[in-house]
């Protein structure tokens, strides 16, 4: 298990990662989502032990990455954003070097190298100079390097960037297979990829965590006000009258006449979409209006993502902060509350 506690990173005065905490369980694929510049790579660099943190703690299988780096790093394979390959080396030489770095020796080294090369389908380029490889191949060589030695945790920073669609699918299925023996943290800004592969997602923007949950739960949490689309044949007025008064329908937002006596409605619902849909169907049939198409708009990850990213961070007002502080101290004298006020203003500024 990797535990990340209150991880913070400052670049000068600029806060790139702001007090984030989460854990990566065994045999789990954790997606790390965020727009460009959200702090994904910085966080991953810190977890992998490349960048030191300004504050907080990363523990890998019980070993603190700053206090016990050599032991902690044995358990991770890291593929950074730019694959760390030497252009002047052949693929096989490079993997040999990486296996050596990880302390793999002798026969095991050879079998490990063959294993990762077969897995990533780079066996046929093993004697080529890396500088002559395409971006996709370089990416796969970098990925192979991370897999060497079967580390427990894999940290993959945008592993599918630069690959063609076929390779993307291959790499995704590799990542899915990895779940059996490894845990994977995997960053991306391609949402379909994340929803296809990950068990849980961490959504991050401007260094703050916006959500940590499974994809289903995230989608569900945005499902309160669903929208129903209805296409029906029959009189428009009659249909509108039936739909408009049905239970659970809050309003008809759109009614488009398509000609041929066909109308399509967009309806906002308040309540369980399935039940309302069933009832509407029955009502319409009774009144000889035939339904051609009925479907609900389900919020997908894309919507959830945009919503979460664009949602302003909820700032606490000075009063709220004061309320938090004051009850704890009990009856406060004037001087103390003044201090608290100054403190909370400072907090406000930081945010």
């Amino acid at each position, binding site marked *: 298990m990797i535990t990340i506690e209150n991880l913070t990173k400052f670049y000068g005065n600029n806060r790139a990662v702001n007090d984030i905490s989460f854990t990566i369980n065994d045999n789990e694929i954790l997606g790390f989502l965020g727009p460009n510049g959200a702090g994904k790579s910085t966080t991953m660099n810190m977890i992998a032990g*490349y960048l030191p943190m300004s504050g907080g703690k990363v523990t890998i299988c019980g070993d603190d990455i700053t206090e016990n780096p050599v032991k902690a790093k044995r358990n991770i394979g890291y593929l950074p954003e730019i694959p*760390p390959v030497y252009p*002047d*080396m052949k693929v096989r*030489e490079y993997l040999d*070097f990486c296996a050596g770095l990880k302390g793999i020796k002798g026969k095991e080294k050879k079998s490990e190298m063959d294993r990762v090369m077969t897995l990533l389908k780079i066996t046929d380029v093993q004697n080529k100079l890396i500088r002559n490889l395409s971006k996709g191949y370089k990416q796969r060589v970098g990925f192979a390097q991370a897999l060497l030695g079967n580390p427990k945790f894999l940290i993959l920073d945008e592993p599918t960037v630069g690959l063609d669609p076929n390779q993307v699918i291959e790499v995704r299925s590799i990542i899915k297979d990895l779940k059996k023996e490894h845990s994977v943290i995997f960053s991306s800004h391609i949402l379909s990829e994340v929803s296809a592969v990950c068990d849980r997602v961490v959504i991050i923007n401007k260094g703050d965590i916006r959500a940590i949950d499974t994809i289903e739960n995230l989608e569900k949490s945005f499902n309160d006000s669903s929208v129903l689309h209805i296409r029906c044949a029959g009189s428009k007025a009659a249909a509108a009258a039936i739909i408009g008064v049905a239970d659970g329908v809050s309003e008809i937002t759109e009614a488009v006449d398509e000609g041929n006596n066909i109308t399509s409605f967009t309806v906002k619902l308040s309540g369980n979409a399935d039940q309302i849909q069933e009832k509407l169907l029955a009502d319409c049939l009774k009144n000889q209006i035939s339904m051609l198409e009925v479907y609900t708009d389900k919020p997908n990850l894309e919507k959830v993502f945009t919503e979460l990213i664009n949602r302003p961070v909820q700032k606490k007002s000075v009063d709220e902060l004061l309320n938090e502080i004051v009850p704890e101290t009990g009856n406060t004298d004037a001087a103390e509350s003044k201090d608290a006020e100054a403190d909370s203003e400072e907090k406000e500024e930081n945010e």
Partner: protein
Amino acid sequence: MFPIYKKELQSFFYTPFAYAIAALFMLLFTYIFGVAIGSIDSSNTMKFSFTEVFYNVTLYFIFLLPILTMRTFADERKFGTEVLLMTSPVSVLKIVIAKFLANMTVYIFMLAGTLVYPIITALNGEVVISQLICAYIGIFSWGMMFIALGMLISSFTENSIIAAIIGEIVMFAVLFLDDFANTAFISQYPKLQSVLYAFAAQPRFAYFSQGFIRLSDLVFFASATIVYLVWTYISIEKRRWKRG
């Protein structure tokens, strides 16, 4: 540690790099050697000595050693492979030592080429072996210090050309430190002069050239090497801490 050493050697010897730099060095060495032989005539009471050639050769080394060391850390940063080294279970100190040993190996390879002249001389005449060994020990420890210095400078930048140029300037300054200390201006301040003189490498190397192996000189070169290597380690760590 060994895989890094091996990889560094591969990058020197699988490419024309090590051969080119060794060839250039041989050319310069041969030139100095040729001039030294050419200046022997009946009127010259001074005998030809290899140690003198070695003393003169240091000036050319100043231009070659930064080229040898310029890529050590600058290129790792440029290609983004520093991440690979830093996230592997190998400590930074071991990385520094492995790279230093690899650079020293190329340096020994360069020096080994010069052995051809004493061998030819020995076949046709006589070589004072003890003095020759002394000169080699001297140039070896002298180079050790300058390679560590070159690595330090390489760790400051991600542009290997800049690393080479700065390296040349700094090494040039270090090489002529004793001459600078001997100038009339510095002579006005005897204390400053003695401090500068203590840091000068050339007079210490001159002892080796004259056939003296003094413990103090060996300690000087060894400790200077260690200081530069530790400084390199600190420089890499410091850069990670303040990156961005």
